[in-house]
């Protein structure tokens, strides 16, 4: 694919040239449809895994929003669901366990032109990555965060997760979980998130709508997705969720811009589980809008040769005389 001259594999050096290395806004030839997002690699998920529904919904949302694969960066962590970037055709970065929000934040700040999405599991998001979750909520970068919440550690074959319900028996909780589960909706609201939604992997249309709304929200947007694990979670099954969920959009009195309403419904869990857009704050610009260095455009598009201007160094040195 690369000849020696083009590929620079022989270690040839170049001074910076002012050439644009940033993303291109040109759309590729052809039509944008679901096939555009097809990857040659088949998912290794178990048949019936909720992650299939999430993968389909993400593709459908991207197509419907007319976002091309080169314009999106999907960052994931480690776990079954974090393998998702491998199964669609888009830019992807599978990072380390618990850290995708931090990696995504760096990528977004360095290139705000990219649509940055984080896809990871409940352990990755709310357990090992809990600190980043908390701070990304309050920081509010324009990142869409989709959590595949199956209430179990599946890739490591069935240990309880931060969202497992009390009493849930697993290999690491043989007598049942004694810890209160994390309620991602309540935590996100308390931490200052501006968009909080919940959906269900068994409701692909609803899920697609939630992802689209999250992507259209300027700022951090959480979509916590109830995702059945058919292999290791025999309690929270498709039926278990289906029997409990209800969409707050069907309730005319529900005001998703009211933090009070959001808190009331967001803390509901058990017999009835609300899904839909639980909270949406309007009129607050994303974090990037406040970052002084971004006023000059994406850092990745800086003309670095300007740094070699002797006047710049002279000015900086003068401050120390």
């Amino acid at each position, binding site marked *: *694919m*690369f000849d020696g001259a083009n*590929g*620079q*594999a*022989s*270690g040839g*050096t*170049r001074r*910076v*040239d002012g*050439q*644009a*290395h*940033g*993303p*291109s806004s040109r*759309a*590729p030839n052809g039509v944008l449809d679901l096939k555009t997002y097809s990857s040659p*690699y088949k998912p290794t998920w178990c048949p019936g895994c909720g992650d299939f529904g999430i993968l389909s919904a993400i593709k459908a949302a991207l197509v419907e929003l007319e976002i091309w*694969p*080169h314009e999106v960066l999907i*960052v994931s962590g480690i776990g079954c669901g974090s393998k998702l*970037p*491998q199964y669609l055709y*888009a*830019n*992807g*970065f*599978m*990072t*380390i366990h618990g*850290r995708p929000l*931090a*990696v995504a*934040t*760096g*990528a977004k*700040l*360095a*290139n705000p032109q*990219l649509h940055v999405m984080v896809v990871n599991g409940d352990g990755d998001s709310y357990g090992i990555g809990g*600190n*980043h979750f908390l*701070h990304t909520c309050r920081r509010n970068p324009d990142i869409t965060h989709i959590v595949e919440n199956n209430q179990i550690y599946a890739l490591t074959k069935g240990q309880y997760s931060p969202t497992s319900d009390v009493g849930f028996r697993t290999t690491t909780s043989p007598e049942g979980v004694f810890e209160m589960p994390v309620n991602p909706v309540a935590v996100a609201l308390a931490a200052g998130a501006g968009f909080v939604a919940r959906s269900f992997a068994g409701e692909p249309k609803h899920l697609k709508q939630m992802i689209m709304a999250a992507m259209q929200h300027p700022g951090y947007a959480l979509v916590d997705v109830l995702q059945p694990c058919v292999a290791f979670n025999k309690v929270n099954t498709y039926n278990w969720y289906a029997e409990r969920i209800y969409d707050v959009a069907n309730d005319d009195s529900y005001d998703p811009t009211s933090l009070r309403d959001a808190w009331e419904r967001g803390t509901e869990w058990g017999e009835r589980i609300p899904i839909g857009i639980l909270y949406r704050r309007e009129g607050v610009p994303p974090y990037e809008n406040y*970052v002084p*260095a*971004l*006023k000059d455009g994406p*850092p*990745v598009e*800086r003309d*670095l*040769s300007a*740094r*070699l201007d002797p006047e710049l*160094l002279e000015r900086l*040195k003068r401050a*120390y*005389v």
Partner: protein
Amino acid sequence: MANGGLKDDFSLSITVGGDAGQGVESSGALFTQALARGGWHVFGVPDYRSRIRGGHNFFQIRAARRPSLSHSDPVHLLLAYTRETIDVHKPNLAQGAAIIYDDGFRVDAAALEAEGFVPIPAPLTKIAEEHGSKLMINTGAVAAACGVLGFPLEPLVRLLHDTYGHKGKKIVEGNASVARAAYAWAVERYPGRLAYRLAEPGEVGEKTQPSQPGRELMVLTGNEAFCLGAVVGGCTFVSAYPMTPATPILEWFAARERELSVVAKHAEDEIAAVCMAIGAGFVGARAMVPTSGGGFSLMAEALGMAGMCEVPVVIVNVQRGGPSTGLPTRTEQGDLLFVLHASQGEFPRIVLAPGTHEQYFEAGWRAFNLAEKYQCPVIVLSDQFLAAARKSLPLDALTLDGVSIDRGALLSATELDRLDGPYRRYAMTETGVSPRALPGHPKAVFTVTTDEHGEDGHITEEIDLRVAMMDKRMRKLEAALADMRGPDLYGPEDADVTLICWGSTVGPAREALPLLAGQGVTANVLHFTDIWPFPVHKAEMALQGVRRAIAVEQNHTAQFARLLRMMTGFQVNGSVRKYDGRPFSPQQIAARALVEVGARV
């Protein structure tokens, strides 16, 4: 001609000491800068504790006619902001040293005199209250010190205007008045009578310019020199979690974020900081993370991610005393072998250990070039001593000579436009460096993963591919060896003893050479700055003529000597090690090296 009688190697040491919260470091910085404006070469070392108030702090300044490479003992003038300061520093004072203190302190001046010192009780509180406010007492103290040293007042007053100008006329004028009054008091009382002065006996005030007029000196810390280097090196992204002694790097960029257009992100923890930098580096920013050993420990897993995913990122570890919280505000070189091996598995990394302000500046831009050229993490390993030392440098000491911005095998948008066939991020190449696209181009849509992967970045566990990918990544280290510099030799080529050091110990080690020569021992210094990939051949060449090698390191186990033996088989004959958190002085190195070589003098 003024100062014609002062020898070229003339050097004088001053200590400002007091409690934390009394402004010891700011006094030291003010004094240091004033001396440099007066034409003196300075080297200032802060010594402070990890607390906001209380506890003894001090700032040691060396003023010299020639550029200094380190501070120097003993001290000739002590500026004591507390009574305790006198007791703490007496053992390090030269015979005949002057001690300036507030005349309100209960100090037995006669006893100090009997010990051979010159006590100078000064009405500092009174002068400050009369001419400005009590808060300006430190200004008066520094001015009084200038007076007894025979150093002109004018550079200090000018500096006060520059420093306090933004605080309004009242504060500037108050400080200047206090300085004038204290200076006049000192000149009147101590007109050139002291043994140690920055002037010839009898000379006072304006006549004492030590070096060529018009020769401007800047005074900056090592961290500041590094920041300048990072700017010219094209750094566009800094993320960090505050940790002494690396914090000033983030603060420096945060203060200039708008001016320089560099993202300066204070992250929620060090793991987030390094992950943000890796995310930024992945999409094409020149990203760095300043931290110290504890933060670096937290970053270990992410370091491996940068290695595995071949993401350029620069991590600065400003070492402090360990283990664990250790000596948070003090210096050590205890992280060398740790940074070389941190994170699981094997992957290429590059480690630079600058030893001087000039080298720290250079590391600022070199690190980014190496990171992009070899698509791997680069670690800059400095320490609190180098980071915080305020050194005078002529303006032409930090220049753009040799500076380039080399982005390595980065594919431009035009090159990507011409691409036919799918882009392979990890294409196999001879050097191991794969042509790199940034996310955002329609012809180069790709995924990367911390799992082992194939050329297209997809996960694999296939044996041949795994082996080929490991080999590809590790080949980059062989390629990078070409960019690694061998050790620098200072002093005579032919010497009985060679002091082997790395990083910041080079300054005091070089200053120890004349001291050793004075004891009849011919010695030189072999200094390593480029640590990994280890420049084996260049090291072996340099070691050929070495007769007796003494490792000089600020750690307990002579880590570099162990690395040297591992990589070359060369074994040092002895070592001078220090792990009390305080930087080596040249005198300490010389004295202990003499013991190591069993000098018969």
